[in-house]
Protein backbone atom coordinates (compact mmCIF):
# COMPACT_ATOMS: atom_id res chain seq x y z
CA UNK A 1 0.00 0.00 0.00
CA UNK A 2 2.94 2.23 0.62
CA UNK A 3 3.39 2.13 -3.13
CA UNK A 4 0.16 4.03 -3.72
CA UNK A 5 1.74 7.13 -2.24
CA UNK A 6 4.48 7.28 -4.93
CA UNK A 7 1.74 7.11 -7.57
CA UNK A 8 0.07 10.21 -6.19
CA UNK A 9 3.43 11.86 -5.77
CA UNK A 10 4.32 11.04 -9.38
CA UNK A 11 1.17 12.78 -10.58
CA UNK A 12 1.96 15.81 -8.48
CA UNK A 13 5.55 15.92 -9.74
CA UNK A 14 4.37 15.60 -13.35
CA UNK A 15 1.98 18.52 -12.87
CA UNK A 16 4.74 20.62 -11.33
CA UNK A 17 7.08 19.67 -14.18
CA UNK A 18 4.51 20.77 -16.77
CA UNK A 19 4.69 24.24 -15.18
CA UNK A 20 8.49 23.98 -15.01
CA UNK A 21 8.35 23.88 -11.21
CA UNK A 22 9.87 21.61 -8.60
CA UNK A 23 8.58 20.11 -5.37
CA UNK A 24 10.60 22.44 -3.18
CA UNK A 25 10.38 25.48 -5.44
CA UNK A 26 13.83 25.24 -6.97
CA UNK A 27 14.65 25.74 -10.64
CA UNK A 28 15.47 22.68 -12.72
CA UNK A 29 19.24 22.94 -12.38
CA UNK A 30 19.38 24.50 -8.91
CA UNK A 31 21.08 22.78 -6.02
CA UNK A 32 19.98 22.83 -2.42
CA UNK A 33 22.42 24.68 -0.19
CA UNK A 34 25.60 22.69 0.18
CA UNK A 35 27.76 23.20 3.24
CA UNK A 36 31.18 21.58 3.25
CA UNK A 37 33.47 21.28 6.26
CA UNK A 38 36.84 19.54 6.24
CA UNK A 39 39.32 18.21 8.78
CA UNK A 40 36.70 17.81 11.48
CA UNK A 41 37.27 14.32 12.90
CA UNK A 42 40.29 13.95 15.16
CA UNK A 43 41.06 10.29 14.54
CA UNK A 44 40.55 10.29 10.79
CA UNK A 45 43.58 11.17 8.66
CA UNK A 46 41.26 13.09 6.37
CA UNK A 47 37.63 13.96 6.95
CA UNK A 48 34.78 15.99 5.59
CA UNK A 49 31.13 16.61 6.27
CA UNK A 50 28.60 17.64 3.66
CA UNK A 51 25.18 19.01 4.46
CA UNK A 52 23.12 19.14 1.29
CA UNK A 53 19.68 20.44 2.24
CA UNK A 54 18.58 17.87 4.84
CA UNK A 55 21.03 15.23 3.63
CA UNK A 56 24.04 14.78 5.88
CA UNK A 57 27.07 12.61 5.16
CA UNK A 58 30.56 12.21 6.54
CA UNK A 59 33.60 10.90 4.74
CA UNK A 60 36.66 9.66 6.57
CA UNK A 61 40.05 8.57 5.28
CA UNK A 62 42.23 6.07 7.15
CA UNK A 63 45.50 4.48 6.10
CA UNK A 64 47.21 1.23 6.81
CA UNK A 65 50.29 -0.58 5.58
CA UNK A 66 49.55 -3.60 3.41
CA UNK A 67 51.18 -5.87 0.87
CA UNK A 68 50.81 -4.59 -2.71
CA UNK A 69 48.82 -6.46 -5.31
CA UNK A 70 51.15 -8.90 -7.07
CA UNK A 71 50.61 -7.29 -10.48
CA UNK A 72 51.25 -3.79 -9.08
CA UNK A 73 54.18 -4.23 -6.68
CA UNK A 74 55.07 -0.52 -6.53
CA UNK A 75 51.58 0.89 -6.09
CA UNK A 76 49.43 1.69 -3.12
CA UNK A 77 45.71 1.04 -3.27
CA UNK A 78 42.35 2.66 -2.61
CA UNK A 79 39.38 0.99 -0.94
CA UNK A 80 36.05 2.75 -0.80
CA UNK A 81 33.11 1.65 1.32
CA UNK A 82 29.71 3.18 1.86
CA UNK A 83 27.42 2.54 4.79
CA UNK A 84 23.69 3.12 4.62
CA UNK A 85 23.03 2.63 8.32
CA UNK A 86 19.55 2.49 9.87
CA UNK A 87 20.36 5.86 11.44
CA UNK A 88 20.01 7.54 8.04
CA UNK A 89 16.40 6.74 7.16
CA UNK A 90 13.50 4.53 8.14
CA UNK A 91 13.93 2.61 4.87
CA UNK A 92 17.37 1.31 5.89
CA UNK A 93 17.68 -1.84 7.94
CA UNK A 94 20.65 -3.43 9.64
CA UNK A 95 22.36 -6.24 7.80
CA UNK A 96 25.00 -6.97 5.19
CA UNK A 97 25.78 -4.29 2.58
CA UNK A 98 22.81 -3.72 0.26
CA UNK A 99 23.14 -3.38 -3.53
CA UNK A 100 22.40 0.34 -3.02
CA UNK A 101 25.33 0.87 -0.66
CA UNK A 102 27.64 -1.19 -2.87
CA UNK A 103 26.68 0.87 -5.92
CA UNK A 104 27.21 4.12 -4.00
CA UNK A 105 30.67 3.11 -2.81
CA UNK A 106 31.77 1.84 -6.19
CA UNK A 107 30.51 4.82 -8.19
CA UNK A 108 32.26 7.29 -5.86
CA UNK A 109 35.38 5.11 -5.98
CA UNK A 110 35.45 5.01 -9.78
CA UNK A 111 35.17 8.76 -10.13
CA UNK A 112 38.21 9.32 -7.92
CA UNK A 113 40.25 6.36 -9.12
CA UNK A 114 39.65 6.83 -12.83
CA UNK A 115 40.51 10.51 -12.78
CA UNK A 116 44.03 9.36 -11.96
CA UNK A 117 44.29 12.02 -9.25
CA UNK A 118 46.05 9.68 -6.81
CA UNK A 119 49.71 8.97 -7.52
CA UNK A 120 49.68 5.33 -6.48
CA UNK A 121 53.47 5.08 -6.93
CA UNK A 122 53.90 7.73 -4.24
CA UNK A 123 52.14 5.34 -1.84
CA UNK A 124 54.83 2.67 -2.17
CA UNK A 125 56.94 2.11 0.96
CA UNK A 126 59.01 -0.97 0.02
CA UNK A 127 58.44 -2.22 -3.54
CA UNK A 128 56.79 -5.62 -3.58
CA UNK A 129 56.45 -5.64 0.20
CA UNK A 130 54.80 -2.67 1.79
CA UNK A 131 52.49 -0.03 0.38
CA UNK A 132 49.96 2.40 1.79
CA UNK A 133 46.35 1.38 1.53
CA UNK A 134 43.94 4.31 1.50
CA UNK A 135 40.60 3.45 3.05
CA UNK A 136 37.84 5.89 2.24
CA UNK A 137 34.60 5.37 4.14
CA UNK A 138 31.34 7.12 3.39
CA UNK A 139 28.91 7.37 6.26
CA UNK A 140 25.40 8.57 5.49
CA UNK A 141 23.68 9.99 8.57
CA UNK A 142 20.57 11.51 6.99
CA UNK A 143 19.21 10.59 3.57
CA UNK A 144 16.84 13.24 2.28
CA UNK A 145 17.89 12.81 -1.33
CA UNK A 146 21.00 12.79 -3.53
CA UNK A 147 23.38 11.00 -1.21
CA UNK A 148 25.61 10.29 -4.24
CA UNK A 149 26.69 13.90 -4.76
CA UNK A 150 26.89 14.52 -1.02
CA UNK A 151 29.16 11.49 -0.59
CA UNK A 152 31.31 12.20 -3.65
CA UNK A 153 31.87 15.80 -2.57
CA UNK A 154 32.71 14.77 0.99
CA UNK A 155 34.98 12.03 -0.35
CA UNK A 156 37.15 14.20 -2.56
CA UNK A 157 37.31 16.92 0.11
CA UNK A 158 38.41 14.39 2.74
CA UNK A 159 40.98 12.91 0.39
CA UNK A 160 42.39 16.30 -0.49
CA UNK A 161 42.96 17.15 3.16
CA UNK A 162 44.33 13.74 4.21
CA UNK A 163 47.76 13.28 5.79
CA UNK A 164 49.52 9.91 5.55
CA UNK A 165 50.39 8.90 9.16
CA UNK A 166 53.84 7.52 8.41
CA UNK A 167 55.24 8.30 11.86
CA UNK A 168 52.57 6.25 13.62
CA UNK A 169 53.50 3.27 11.44
CA UNK A 170 57.21 3.92 11.93
CA UNK A 171 57.94 4.32 8.21
CA UNK A 172 59.20 7.89 7.95
CA UNK A 173 57.64 11.30 8.35
CA UNK A 174 53.98 12.17 7.90
CA UNK A 175 53.20 13.61 4.50
CA UNK A 176 50.21 15.12 2.80
CA UNK A 177 48.33 12.86 0.39
CA UNK A 178 48.91 14.73 -2.87
CA UNK A 179 46.03 14.70 -5.33
CA UNK A 180 46.78 16.03 -8.79
CA UNK A 181 43.19 16.91 -9.64
CA UNK A 182 39.70 17.23 -8.19
CA UNK A 183 37.10 14.94 -9.78
CA UNK A 184 33.55 16.09 -9.00
CA UNK A 185 30.28 14.20 -9.34
CA UNK A 186 26.95 15.67 -10.43
CA UNK A 187 23.75 13.61 -10.39
CA UNK A 188 20.57 14.12 -12.37
CA UNK A 189 17.25 12.37 -11.92
CA UNK A 190 14.25 12.16 -14.20
CA UNK A 191 11.33 13.72 -12.35
CA UNK A 192 7.99 14.36 -14.02
CA UNK A 193 9.52 13.36 -17.34
CA UNK A 194 12.52 15.68 -17.38
CA UNK A 195 15.90 15.69 -15.71
CA UNK A 196 16.57 17.80 -12.62
CA UNK A 197 19.77 18.32 -10.65
CA UNK A 198 20.11 17.33 -6.99
CA UNK A 199 16.80 15.52 -6.47
CA UNK A 200 15.26 15.83 -3.02
CA UNK A 201 13.69 12.89 -1.20
CA UNK A 202 10.22 13.35 -2.71
CA UNK A 203 11.67 13.65 -6.20
CA UNK A 204 13.57 10.41 -5.66
CA UNK A 205 10.45 8.57 -4.44
CA UNK A 206 8.35 9.83 -7.35
CA UNK A 207 11.12 9.93 -9.96
CA UNK A 208 12.67 7.59 -12.46
CA UNK A 209 16.26 6.84 -13.47
CA UNK A 210 19.25 8.85 -12.35
CA UNK A 211 22.56 9.59 -14.03
CA UNK A 212 25.82 10.19 -12.16
CA UNK A 213 28.52 12.06 -14.04
CA UNK A 214 32.04 12.58 -12.67
CA UNK A 215 34.12 15.22 -14.43
CA UNK A 216 37.80 16.04 -14.00
CA UNK A 217 39.54 19.41 -13.99
CA UNK A 218 39.57 19.58 -17.80
CA UNK A 219 35.90 18.68 -18.14
CA UNK A 220 36.70 15.12 -19.20
CA UNK A 221 34.35 12.31 -18.17
CA UNK A 222 35.85 9.85 -15.68
CA UNK A 223 32.82 7.92 -14.54
CA UNK A 224 29.23 7.48 -15.65
CA UNK A 225 26.50 5.46 -14.05
CA UNK A 226 22.85 5.06 -14.81
CA UNK A 227 20.85 3.76 -11.88
CA UNK A 228 17.20 2.77 -11.46
CA UNK A 229 14.47 2.07 -13.98
CA UNK A 230 14.17 4.28 -17.04
CA UNK A 231 15.83 5.18 -20.33
CA UNK A 232 17.35 8.30 -21.83
CA UNK A 233 18.15 9.65 -25.27
CA UNK A 234 21.61 10.78 -26.40
CA UNK A 235 20.27 14.36 -26.70
CA UNK A 236 19.15 14.34 -23.07
CA UNK A 237 22.58 13.20 -22.03
CA UNK A 238 24.20 16.04 -23.96
CA UNK A 239 21.99 18.50 -22.11
CA UNK A 240 22.85 17.26 -18.62
CA UNK A 241 26.54 16.93 -19.50
CA UNK A 242 26.62 20.65 -20.31
CA UNK A 243 24.91 21.43 -16.99
CA UNK A 244 27.34 19.17 -15.16
CA UNK A 245 30.29 21.06 -16.62
CA UNK A 246 29.18 24.29 -14.97
CA UNK A 247 28.15 22.80 -11.65
CA UNK A 248 31.29 20.67 -11.29
CA UNK A 249 33.43 23.78 -11.72
CA UNK A 250 31.54 25.52 -8.89
CA UNK A 251 31.84 22.56 -6.56
CA UNK A 252 35.53 22.16 -7.40
CA UNK A 253 36.11 25.74 -6.32
CA UNK A 254 34.25 25.06 -3.07
CA UNK A 255 36.37 21.96 -2.35
CA UNK A 256 39.57 23.90 -3.05
CA UNK A 257 38.46 26.69 -0.73
CA UNK A 258 38.27 24.20 2.17
CA UNK A 259 41.85 23.04 1.89
CA UNK A 260 44.15 24.28 4.60
Amino acid at each position, binding site marked *: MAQMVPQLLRQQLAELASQDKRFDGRGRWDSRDLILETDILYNAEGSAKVVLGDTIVYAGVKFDVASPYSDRPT*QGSLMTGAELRPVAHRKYEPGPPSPES*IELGRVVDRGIRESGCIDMEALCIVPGEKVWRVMLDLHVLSDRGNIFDACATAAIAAMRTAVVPAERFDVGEDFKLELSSTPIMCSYQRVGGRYVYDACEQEEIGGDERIHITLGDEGHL*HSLQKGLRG*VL*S*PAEFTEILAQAGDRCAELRELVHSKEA
Partner: protein
Amino acid sequence: MGGYGDVQLLREDGKRLDGRAVDEMREVEIKAGFLPAAEGSAWVKHGLNVAVAAVYGPMEAHPRKIQRQDRAVIDVRYNMAPFSTSDRIRPGFNRRSREISKVTAEALESVVLVERYPRSKIRVEIEILAAEAGTRCVGITAASVALADAGIPMKDLLVGVASGKIDGIVVLDLDKAEDNYGQADLPMGIMPNTGEIAFLQMDGDLSPEEYDLATEYNFKAAHEIHELMKQALLDSASGGDV
Protein backbone atom coordinates in the same frame (compact mmCIF):
# COMPACT_ATOMS: atom_id res chain seq x y z
CA MET B 1 40.67 1.13 -16.49
CA GLY B 2 44.11 -0.14 -15.82
CA GLY B 3 46.14 2.33 -17.80
CA TYR B 4 49.35 0.93 -16.37
CA GLY B 5 52.56 0.31 -18.27
CA ASP B 6 53.53 1.28 -21.76
CA VAL B 7 51.73 -1.24 -23.89
CA GLN B 8 51.17 -0.15 -27.45
CA LEU B 9 47.71 -1.22 -28.54
CA LEU B 10 47.53 0.29 -32.01
CA ARG B 11 49.79 -0.98 -34.81
CA GLU B 12 51.74 1.17 -37.25
CA ASP B 13 49.01 0.63 -39.84
CA GLY B 14 46.34 2.01 -37.50
CA LYS B 15 44.82 -1.42 -36.89
CA ARG B 16 44.50 -2.97 -33.46
CA LEU B 17 46.67 -5.84 -32.16
CA ASP B 18 44.10 -8.44 -33.23
CA GLY B 19 43.85 -6.85 -36.68
CA ARG B 20 40.53 -5.10 -36.20
CA ALA B 21 39.80 -1.58 -37.44
CA VAL B 22 38.99 1.00 -34.76
CA ASP B 23 35.26 0.78 -35.45
CA GLU B 24 35.12 -2.98 -35.89
CA MET B 25 33.59 -5.23 -33.26
CA ARG B 26 34.55 -8.75 -32.37
CA GLU B 27 32.65 -11.63 -33.91
CA VAL B 28 29.30 -12.31 -32.28
CA GLU B 29 27.38 -15.56 -32.30
CA ILE B 30 23.97 -15.99 -30.65
CA LYS B 31 21.72 -18.92 -29.99
CA ALA B 32 18.29 -18.73 -28.40
CA GLY B 33 16.48 -21.34 -26.38
CA PHE B 34 18.87 -24.16 -25.60
CA LEU B 35 18.50 -24.66 -21.82
CA PRO B 36 15.65 -27.16 -21.47
CA ALA B 37 14.75 -26.33 -17.88
CA ALA B 38 14.37 -22.59 -18.41
CA GLU B 39 11.33 -20.73 -19.75
CA GLY B 40 13.71 -18.83 -21.99
CA SER B 41 17.44 -18.96 -22.56
CA ALA B 42 20.29 -17.74 -24.70
CA TRP B 43 23.92 -18.43 -25.42
CA VAL B 44 26.11 -15.59 -26.65
CA LYS B 45 29.68 -15.78 -27.81
CA HIS B 46 31.21 -12.34 -28.25
CA GLY B 47 34.85 -12.55 -29.19
CA LEU B 48 36.25 -14.94 -26.59
CA ASN B 49 33.49 -14.16 -24.08
CA VAL B 50 30.83 -16.75 -23.52
CA ALA B 51 27.67 -15.89 -21.59
CA VAL B 52 24.56 -17.95 -20.93
CA ALA B 53 21.28 -16.50 -19.69
CA ALA B 54 18.20 -18.26 -18.38
CA VAL B 55 14.80 -16.77 -17.58
CA TYR B 56 12.35 -18.23 -15.06
CA GLY B 57 8.90 -16.80 -14.47
CA PRO B 58 6.90 -14.67 -14.27
CA MET B 59 6.31 -16.22 -10.86
CA GLU B 60 4.97 -15.02 -7.55
CA ALA B 61 7.40 -12.59 -5.98
CA HIS B 62 8.95 -13.79 -2.74
CA PRO B 63 9.61 -12.51 -0.19
CA ARG B 64 6.51 -10.31 -0.01
CA LYS B 65 8.48 -7.18 0.65
CA ILE B 66 10.01 -7.22 -2.85
CA GLN B 67 6.53 -7.32 -4.42
CA ARG B 68 5.29 -4.31 -6.37
CA GLN B 69 1.54 -3.80 -6.63
CA ASP B 70 1.74 -2.27 -10.08
CA ARG B 71 4.44 -4.25 -11.87
CA ALA B 72 6.81 -7.19 -11.91
CA VAL B 73 10.28 -6.98 -10.46
CA ILE B 74 13.21 -8.40 -12.34
CA ASP B 75 15.72 -10.27 -10.26
CA VAL B 76 19.07 -10.47 -12.06
CA ARG B 77 22.01 -12.51 -10.93
CA TYR B 78 25.20 -11.86 -12.87
CA ASN B 79 27.71 -14.53 -11.94
CA MET B 80 31.17 -15.35 -13.22
CA ALA B 81 32.04 -19.04 -13.23
CA PRO B 82 35.18 -19.84 -11.18
CA PHE B 83 36.92 -20.99 -14.36
CA SER B 84 35.92 -17.98 -16.48
CA THR B 85 39.15 -15.99 -15.98
CA SER B 86 42.86 -16.76 -16.00
CA ASP B 87 43.03 -16.69 -12.18
CA ARG B 88 40.26 -18.74 -10.64
CA ILE B 89 37.49 -16.60 -9.12
CA ARG B 90 36.18 -17.46 -5.69
CA PRO B 91 32.60 -18.64 -6.24
CA GLY B 92 29.74 -16.50 -5.06
CA PHE B 93 28.69 -12.90 -5.16
CA ASN B 94 31.20 -10.09 -4.76
CA ARG B 95 30.78 -6.31 -4.77
CA ARG B 96 31.37 -6.07 -8.52
CA SER B 97 28.81 -8.73 -9.43
CA ARG B 98 26.25 -7.25 -7.03
CA GLU B 99 26.57 -3.84 -8.64
CA ILE B 100 26.36 -5.24 -12.17
CA SER B 101 23.32 -7.33 -11.19
CA LYS B 102 21.59 -4.25 -9.79
CA VAL B 103 22.11 -1.95 -12.77
CA THR B 104 21.37 -4.75 -15.25
CA ALA B 105 18.08 -5.48 -13.49
CA GLU B 106 17.16 -1.81 -13.62
CA ALA B 107 18.01 -1.65 -17.32
CA LEU B 108 15.89 -4.72 -18.09
CA GLU B 109 13.00 -3.34 -16.01
CA SER B 110 13.16 -0.33 -18.34
CA VAL B 111 12.50 -2.42 -21.45
CA VAL B 112 10.30 -5.29 -20.24
CA LEU B 113 6.58 -4.44 -20.04
CA VAL B 114 6.64 -5.13 -16.32
CA GLU B 115 3.21 -3.54 -15.81
CA ARG B 116 1.71 -6.66 -17.40
CA TYR B 117 2.71 -8.77 -14.40
CA PRO B 118 1.84 -7.05 -11.10
CA ARG B 119 3.14 -8.65 -7.88
CA SER B 120 5.31 -11.09 -9.79
CA LYS B 121 8.98 -11.70 -10.27
CA ILE B 122 10.97 -12.55 -13.35
CA ARG B 123 14.23 -14.28 -12.57
CA VAL B 124 17.14 -13.66 -14.98
CA GLU B 125 20.28 -15.68 -14.42
CA ILE B 126 23.42 -14.60 -16.27
CA GLU B 127 26.36 -16.97 -16.14
CA ILE B 128 29.68 -15.84 -17.57
CA LEU B 129 31.53 -18.96 -18.67
CA ALA B 130 34.48 -17.24 -20.35
CA ALA B 131 35.49 -13.66 -19.61
CA GLU B 132 37.63 -11.65 -22.00
CA ALA B 133 36.47 -8.03 -21.45
CA GLY B 134 32.94 -6.72 -21.88
CA THR B 135 31.09 -9.45 -19.98
CA ARG B 136 28.42 -7.14 -18.54
CA CYS B 137 27.44 -6.17 -22.10
CA VAL B 138 27.44 -9.76 -23.33
CA GLY B 139 25.29 -10.62 -20.31
CA ILE B 140 22.76 -7.92 -21.21
CA THR B 141 22.54 -9.17 -24.79
CA ALA B 142 22.07 -12.75 -23.59
CA ALA B 143 19.47 -11.73 -21.02
CA SER B 144 17.41 -9.87 -23.64
CA VAL B 145 17.38 -12.82 -26.00
CA ALA B 146 16.45 -15.14 -23.14
CA LEU B 147 13.57 -12.84 -22.11
CA ALA B 148 12.28 -12.75 -25.68
CA ASP B 149 12.69 -16.52 -25.91
CA ALA B 150 10.57 -16.83 -22.76
CA GLY B 151 7.83 -14.89 -24.55
CA ILE B 152 8.01 -11.94 -22.19
CA PRO B 153 6.86 -8.75 -23.93
CA MET B 154 9.42 -5.95 -24.26
CA LYS B 155 9.60 -2.51 -25.84
CA ASP B 156 12.77 -3.49 -27.62
CA LEU B 157 15.62 -5.99 -27.49
CA LEU B 158 18.24 -4.41 -25.28
CA VAL B 159 21.74 -4.76 -26.77
CA GLY B 160 24.90 -4.59 -24.66
CA VAL B 161 27.87 -2.91 -26.36
CA ALA B 162 30.96 -1.00 -25.30
CA SER B 163 33.46 1.37 -26.78
CA GLY B 164 36.60 2.72 -25.21
CA LYS B 165 39.87 4.50 -25.76
CA ILE B 166 43.29 3.02 -26.48
CA ASP B 167 46.47 4.96 -27.22
CA GLY B 168 44.29 8.09 -27.22
CA ILE B 169 42.00 6.76 -29.96
CA VAL B 170 38.33 5.84 -29.55
CA VAL B 171 37.69 2.23 -30.51
CA LEU B 172 34.68 -0.07 -30.58
CA ASP B 173 34.45 -3.18 -28.38
CA LEU B 174 37.60 -3.48 -26.25
CA ASP B 175 39.26 -6.86 -25.91
CA LYS B 176 41.10 -8.00 -22.78
CA ALA B 177 44.43 -6.27 -23.47
CA GLU B 178 42.66 -3.08 -24.54
CA ASP B 179 40.51 -3.17 -21.43
CA ASN B 180 43.56 -3.70 -19.19
CA TYR B 181 45.82 -1.11 -20.76
CA GLY B 182 43.33 1.28 -22.37
CA GLN B 183 42.22 4.66 -21.06
CA ALA B 184 38.44 4.44 -21.02
CA ASP B 185 35.50 2.08 -21.27
CA LEU B 186 31.90 3.08 -22.06
CA PRO B 187 29.47 0.15 -21.76
CA MET B 188 25.90 0.83 -22.85
CA GLY B 189 22.61 -0.98 -23.14
CA ILE B 190 20.97 0.34 -26.29
CA MET B 191 17.42 -0.01 -27.58
CA PRO B 192 18.03 0.04 -31.34
CA ASN B 193 14.41 0.64 -32.34
CA THR B 194 13.79 3.62 -30.09
CA GLY B 195 17.37 4.93 -30.06
CA GLU B 196 17.35 5.14 -26.26
CA ILE B 197 19.91 4.12 -23.65
CA ALA B 198 18.77 1.88 -20.80
CA PHE B 199 22.17 0.92 -19.37
CA LEU B 200 25.04 3.33 -18.97
CA GLN B 201 28.35 3.13 -17.19
CA MET B 202 31.75 4.57 -17.93
CA ASP B 203 35.18 4.75 -16.41
CA GLY B 204 38.51 6.16 -17.45
CA ASP B 205 39.06 9.42 -19.29
CA LEU B 206 36.95 10.71 -22.20
CA SER B 207 36.51 14.22 -23.50
CA PRO B 208 32.93 15.16 -24.45
CA GLU B 209 33.88 14.77 -28.14
CA GLU B 210 35.35 11.32 -27.50
CA TYR B 211 32.17 10.39 -25.62
CA ASP B 212 30.10 11.36 -28.68
CA LEU B 213 32.23 9.24 -31.02
CA ALA B 214 32.19 6.26 -28.64
CA THR B 215 28.39 6.56 -28.44
CA GLU B 216 28.17 6.63 -32.23
CA TYR B 217 30.26 3.43 -32.45
CA ASN B 218 28.07 1.81 -29.78
CA PHE B 219 24.86 2.58 -31.69
CA LYS B 220 26.34 1.23 -34.91
CA ALA B 221 27.37 -2.02 -33.23
CA ALA B 222 24.03 -2.29 -31.43
CA HIS B 223 22.21 -2.33 -34.76
CA GLU B 224 24.48 -5.10 -36.04
CA ILE B 225 24.06 -7.25 -32.92
CA HIS B 226 20.33 -6.55 -32.93
CA GLU B 227 20.03 -8.30 -36.32
CA LEU B 228 21.88 -11.35 -34.94
CA MET B 229 19.58 -11.43 -31.91
CA LYS B 230 16.46 -11.37 -34.05
CA GLN B 231 17.86 -14.08 -36.33
CA ALA B 232 18.68 -16.29 -33.33
CA LEU B 233 15.10 -15.95 -32.07
CA LEU B 234 13.70 -16.75 -35.51
CA ASP B 235 15.95 -19.82 -35.81
CA SER B 236 14.90 -20.99 -32.37
CA ALA B 237 11.18 -20.49 -33.13
CA SER B 238 11.49 -22.52 -36.32
CA GLY B 239 13.23 -25.34 -34.46
CA GLY B 240 16.60 -24.52 -35.99
CA ASP B 241 19.88 -26.00 -34.91
CA VAL B 242 20.48 -25.25 -31.24
